[in-house]
């Protein structure tokens, strides 16, 4: 029983950074912009949040610092991709490299000591319920925040006018511009939001998930988040499900190592990456399903004419 609880809660926790990063990227891509730099923005968020905790700031401030760091990093991409109309693949890659360098630079003085991790909530009565308590009511606040963000983003994209405008811009910036919507400004906002979400994802890694600083600690989670958006065929609910699937994969791998399976640990560590490839293949084979929710102007630079 304890093992099942451990696997369930571990899955939810491991999925949380992926949910933040992938939901943020979803909003960016729905506006027609492809930001490949999630890995860099996550690392910036992780470094800043970790620094804030060691500098003695309270936890919420540290997490906010992480979000701001991610947003600041995304602004670099935004200026290049939206104002300077550069190739979005190249700008995103530059951000990924730059973010990993800057975070490693900032993190050189952090030492290898773990910090006190973000604590789980404690709701009177509910958290103490047998079974249901540990399964549902003892996570740290950011796990719940990720779910709130999921609900908010689903509602925003599909139930508000602003969300409709954002999706319209992603489908046809020319039409949106002709109608009079400020395409570039809205795309900037989407990019900044995506950056802040990636920053939150990074902050979660360094102050809650591992509570220590390791160079390049994201280990590809930013890229897996990118894959999740494709896997989800640009739909929020599937991002949630996909993140849990990957979270489960991570936890099974850790449990497998703990149980001392007769398999090289490297093979187990490679599982999430292998799974990403397999899942991408399964989804991408069906071109129609991809095309249905694919933002038609994705990664195409847009320059308002006249």
């Amino acid at each position, binding site marked *: 029983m304890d093992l099942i609880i451990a696997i369930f809660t571990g899955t939810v926790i491991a999925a949380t950074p992926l949910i933040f990063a992938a939901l943020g990227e979803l909003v960016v891509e729905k506006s027609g912009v492809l930001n490949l730099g999630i890995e860099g923005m996550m690392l910036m968020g992780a470094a800043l949040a970790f620094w804030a905790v060691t500098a003695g700031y309270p936890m919420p401030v540290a997490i906010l610092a992480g979000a701001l760091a991610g947003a600041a990093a995304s602004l670099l991409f935004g200026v*290049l991709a939206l*104002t300077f109309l550069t190739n979005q693949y190249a700008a995103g890659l530059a951000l990924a490299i730059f973010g990993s360098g800057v975070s490693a630079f900032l993190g050189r003085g952090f030492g290898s000591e773990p910090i006190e991790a973000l604590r789980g909530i404690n709701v009177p009565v509910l958290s103490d319920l047998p079974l249901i308590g540990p399964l549902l009511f003892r996570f740290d606040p950011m796990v719940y925040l990720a779910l709130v963000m999921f609900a908010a983003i689903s509602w925003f994209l599909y139930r508000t006018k602003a969300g409709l405008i954002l999706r319209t811009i992603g489908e046809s910036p020319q039409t949106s511009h002709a109608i009079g919507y400020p395409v570039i400004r809205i795309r900037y906002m989407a990019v900044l939001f995506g950056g802040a979400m990636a920053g939150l994802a990074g902050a979660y890694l360094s102050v809650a998930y591992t509570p220590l600083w390791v160079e390049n600690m994201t280990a590809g989670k930013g890229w897996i988040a990118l894959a999740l958006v494709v896997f989800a065929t640009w739909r929020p609910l599937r991002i949630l499900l996909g993140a849990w699937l990957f979270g489960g994969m991570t936890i099974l791998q850790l449990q497998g190592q703990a149980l001392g399976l007769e398999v090289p640990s490297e093979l187990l560590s490679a599982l999430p990456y292998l799974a990403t490839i397999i899942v991408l293949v399964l989804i991408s084979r069906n071109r129609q399903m991809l095309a249905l929710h694919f933002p038609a102007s994705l990664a195409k630079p847009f320059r308002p004419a006249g």
Partner: protein
Amino acid sequence: MRVAAPVLASVLTLVVGSIFFASLGHDPLPTLYAFFVEPLNSLNGLSEWLLKASPLILIACGLAIGFRANVWNIGAEGQFTMGAIAASGVGLFWPNPDSVLLLPLMFVAGMGAGMAWAAIPAFLRARMNTNEILVTLMMTYIATLFLSYLVHGPWRDPAGFNYPQTALLPTAALFESFDPAYRLNPSIFITVVAVFVMWLFTDRSFLGYKMSVSGAAPLAARYAGFRESAAVWIGLMAGGAAAGIAGMAEAAGPLGQLSPQISPGYGFAAIIVAFIGRLNAFGIVLGGLLMSLLFLGGEGVQMTLGLPSALTRIFQGILLFFLLAADFFIFYRIRLIRPARDTHALETA
């Protein structure tokens, strides 16, 4: 004008670098000198410069062939790793360690492994419509883990005091340096040939032209009957082969054995080199020399001034940012447009 952007970007990177050094409390000019000039002040420095530029240029040539056709192989690091593994495998386990065929066999093995590693994303993209950016990157993580498995497990040197590394490659499996005092070796000629082949392909062959059309105008390419899957295969195979050969040359050159860290990020830096070089053979040579200097400078200031080696990656990122931004000012003309109300007022006046 296309040449102006890289020059402008390099100058701006230097300016930002000076400000950065100054803010860290280091006098900018001596620091820049230590970063960009001191490494080249000696014969050994020059040898190291070319030694590091060689894999960067080689890989960038292969990648650029793909990038021209909008085939985004960003997993050269993994193909490099697999090339090094396969070549070292041949070098370590070939029955006759004195054979003169050893180096050529390692060359073939390294190239083959790089291509095989790139063939998976190529197949998945061409047949299964799977995004090659994500697949090549995931394959890089897997290759790194595979290398770690080999050097910690079956390939670990039994006489190596439990260090995670293989035995040293036999002498016949190594490129002999030009001069025993320096590490530069004849593998640099492979790069010279690759640059020439790349130039022939992109500037003098119909196939290369078709690839460029696929990248610049996919619809026109389709209308002209150029197959997209051919561009995908050629693009990824070129990158995989180049990265695999670079991995082989690294294993048979400066490394001489495998350990968990065999690349200081050549595969990723080569992407930037390809862009700085404007996806053009001779541009890539200059870009590779510049990037190699960034690596050397980063190592240099780490040793002399105690600055972190992460600076190299920061400078790489900044350089690419500036390069992309500089393009904008070169390819577009900036015009200030008055707000629409003003023209309205003019019309009514």
